[in-house]
């Protein structure tokens, strides 16, 4: 397993540099915004990666909470399967889908949710799922910071303002705040069962996201604002570069998560051995 790490690292480095080349040079320059539009190739993939990581955190938190009680465990399994099936059906039944969303993407997200859930359930024990939750939250926050830095850097030259209450950008900001408070809760907690508290907060955060999205969407319709990146179809060549960049970012995120995960497991093993040691050697009465 150790051998794979440098190879994967090398592959990611190559992919990243190729993606960088593609984004800066190969991709066609956008007519209206000019070259500054290329920030798009870093801004959007970082956002997607961040959302994916937060989603993994949500799944791990649910599993940590649910696996301790068998009944809830079964119920959640069935709900996840139901979500996947519902997504597939909805994809092809609901005809007037909102602009820019094809049926295939709805179905795949549904299946991805179920796939990811059962994948984590199979390969991660309850404690390991909690470790993965910490890892995905931390790395997710790093990617989210990138999004929140590149966003204004993009809005400034194009619209002359640093910040716009755009639906996606603001949801990212709120998500970032939620997960910063998640990480602070983990650090400041003095309870023996910090994972339980953190998992509860993660569930609250995840429940909050659609509400945030909906509330800002109403806010935007009442106060029209410029939209980051614009909706609608984009030039396939650009889409191609975007996907390459996303792949590169995903590999990079995988690399960072893996090493942070090793660090977390090592940390927990250290704490366990110290606890065991305290258990064995006779304690002098205080």
């Amino acid at each position: 397993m150790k051998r794979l790490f440098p190879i994967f690292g090398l592959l990611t480095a190559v992919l990243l540099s190729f993606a960088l080349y593609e984004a800066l040079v190969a991709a066609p320059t956008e007519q209206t915004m000019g070259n500054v539009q290329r920030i798009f190739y870093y801004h959007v993939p970082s956002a997607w990666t961040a959302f994916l990581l937060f989603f993994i955190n949500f799944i791990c938190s649910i599993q940590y909470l649910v696996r301790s009680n068998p009944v809830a465990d079964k119920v959640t399994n069935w709900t996840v399967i139901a979500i996947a099936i519902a997504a597939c059906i909805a994809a092809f039944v609901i005809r007037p889908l909102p602009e820019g969303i094809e049926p295939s993407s709805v179905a795949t997200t549904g299946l991805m949710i179920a796939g990811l859930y059962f994948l984590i359930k199979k390969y991660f024990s309850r404690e390991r799922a909690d470790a993965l939750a910490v890892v995905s939250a931390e790395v997710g926050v790093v990617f989210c910071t990138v999004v929140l830095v590149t966003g204004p850097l993009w809005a400034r030259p194009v619209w002359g303002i640093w910040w716009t209450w755009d639906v996606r950008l603001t949801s990212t900001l709120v998500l970032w705040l939620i997960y910063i408070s998640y990480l602070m809760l983990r650090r400041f907690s003095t309870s023996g069962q910090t994972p339980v508290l953190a998992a509860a907060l993660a569930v609250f955060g995840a429940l909050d996201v659609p509400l945030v999205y909906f509330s800002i969407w109403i806010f935007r319709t009442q106060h029209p604002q410029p939209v980051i990146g614009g909706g609608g179809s984009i030039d396939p060549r650009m889409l191609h570069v975007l996907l390459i960049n996303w792949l590169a970012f995903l590999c990079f995120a995988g690399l960072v998560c893996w090493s942070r995960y090793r660090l977390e497991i090592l940390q927990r093993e250290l704490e366990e051995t110290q606890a065991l040691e305290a258990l064995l050697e006779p304690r002098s009465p205080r």
Partner: protein
Amino acid sequence: MSTASAVPSGVTGATLAKDLRLEWRSKDAINSMLFFSLLVVVVFSFSFDPNAEESRQIAGGLVWVAFLFAAVVALNQTWARELRNQVLDAYRVSPAPANSLFLAKALGNFIFVAVLEILMTPLFIMFYKLRALGPAWQLLPVAVLGTWALVVNGTFFAAVSLRTRSREIMLPLLLFPISIPALLAMVNATTAILTGELSAKFWIVLLSTYDVVFTIACLLLFELVLNAE
């Protein structure tokens, strides 16, 4: 979930009555809250001295920010009385369900914040020369749903922050990010009603979904948090 044979009923009522009686005797929470929000109102009215038209635009934000901070003062004291002699342990040992304690505490907080709002709103109207152009009766559901949204999550996160080092800081840090949609809805609904240009219908729908979602989440997860010592 407690599967005790005789699950005592009426515990929520008894706990709420106890909290209100104790609060009526000592009045420490309500006094600090009142004084705190009075300060916030006065400071706001100094820093912005709007004419009638402008004040309608910003009054919604100022009112709710003042009430938010006052609510945090109350929420920080929710569990103070239970911690003083670790009475929480006595409750946890008893067969009384955890959710009854949660509902009693949340309702208690709701009453405190509601009393505060009733007392402070006339001051706001006076200072900002407010007169609602839109349907003023809609302000009531907005206030009720909004206050419950803050209080239910606040009580839950007050219980969570019991287990952390810096308790008073932790509560707002946990509560504010999660309450952003509710805050946005309250402020914009109030402004919409005061200015009368837009309809507050959307915001009221959002607030009620928010309340339903988070009340259910709190009831499901509170027992875990209460017993996480």
